[in-house]
């Protein structure tokens, strides 16, 4: 089922972040939410994830099983990459499978280090594997490839494409190239830039 957003609005005090926003997010496809800083992209996916209450409008069709790559990595700092991924996985997902995914994304030498010791790019990739391996029907990704060098970004994007084929994926990004390479629907929020 597609996600249908109608007349969505959200204010923070005097600041209107979303006003009468309408969009359709197709099921089992990639959708890119684009637009300049402050236009409400993160607020929109936070509403879709159920982390922020909307002020008005309707949203239908959001699957119950969600996973996410947040704007910040939101990892458990003292635990290693495998533990961080296993935290959100079902018991049937074995360590071997988690390790294989982490290796595929170029983390083979850092799998058992506490994530606090990893670089920003490595931590980002742990967060991506966590979102991919969690049981979900929809994955929200807020600027998932930020902080990655070109080569790693390419590898990581391919990993996301290969492992999310049967899921709805919503990606917030500033980079049109990401949308062009990965392919999918683009929702441009530029004209909605924050109204104060």
């Amino acid at each position, binding site marked *: 089922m597609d996600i249908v957003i109608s007349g969505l609005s959200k204010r923070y005090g005097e600041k209107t972040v979303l006003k009468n926003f309408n969009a359709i997010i197709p099921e089992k496809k990639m959708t890119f939410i684009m637009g300049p800083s402050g236009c409400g992209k993160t607020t929109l996916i936070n509403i879709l*994830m*159920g*982390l922020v209450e909307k002020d008005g409008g309707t949203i239908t069709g959001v699957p119950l*099983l*969600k*996973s*996410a790559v*947040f704007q*910040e990595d*939101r990892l*458990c*700092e*003292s*635990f*290693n990459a495998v*533990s961080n991924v296993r*935290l*959100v996985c079902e018991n049937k997902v074995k360590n071997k499978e988690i390790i294989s995914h982490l290796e595929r994304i170029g983390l083979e030498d850092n799998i058992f280090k*506490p994530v606090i010791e990893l670089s920003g790019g490595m931590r980002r990739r742990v967060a991506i594997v*966590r979102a991919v391996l*969690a049981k979900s029907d929809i994955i929200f990704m807020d600027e998932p490839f930020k902080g990655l060098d070109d080569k790693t970004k390419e590898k990581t994007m391919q990993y996301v494409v290969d492992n999310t084929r049967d899921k709805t994926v919503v990606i917030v990004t500033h980079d049109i190239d990401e949308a062009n390479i990965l392919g999918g629907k683009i929702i441009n929020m530029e004209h909605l830039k924050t109204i104060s």
Partner: protein
Amino acid sequence: MMNSTTSNRNRIEKLASAAFALLVWQAGAMLIGESLLIVTPIAVVKRLFSLFTEADFFTSIGYSFLRIVAGFLAGLIVGTLMAAVAGKFHLAEIMFQPFIATIKSVPVASFIILCLIWLSMGTLSSFISFLMVLPIIYSNILQGIKSTDRKLLEMAEVFRVGLLRRIVFIYLPQLKPYLMSACSVAMGLAWKSGIAAEVIGVSNGSIGEKLYEAKIYYTTADLFAWTFIIVVLSIGFEKLFLFFIKKFYAGLERL
């Protein structure tokens, strides 16, 4: 290399300061020249060695140790559970507040005298230790729970992480500094209040009873020797307990 040099230097400085304090004590005691008022450290060491050979030495230590540690552990468990409930339900925090404030502000001697009427001698020191430990553990753990990273909790919410995993991966690591500091403070207080309860209640076969006898018979060397033993037990148990907490966390992080 640098760290080991600094650590060696610290050790030497500590030893030097301890030696200096002992020298001041010895000189002061010799100057006063009245063993009833203050005994020399040498006399205390001699008395300590003679205490080791007395029949009831280890039973007295065992008696007090078991009761005070039991009181501490009960305070740790109950305080943690209360903090968990208060962290989840604001109403519970409000309801607990008068009890915690009362325990914190009422002098320990008042509790001891009151409990002398309610409790047997055997349970008095345990209960008093428990009572003194409870508010420290409760307040620290509650503060830790309230300071837990909201963003990690949101992450757990989105991924539908179960309660047990949330406790292990999110709450326990974030509570570590609060737990360590609470245990360190509470343990010292458990020993001080527990021994005070034994002295006031004159619990048979306890360290407190030995202190009470030292007061009655003016045996100052006994008073100093038993005090030294209490300090060693208190610090030793604190170090051992904190070592196990660190081990527990090291094991947790290897999960």
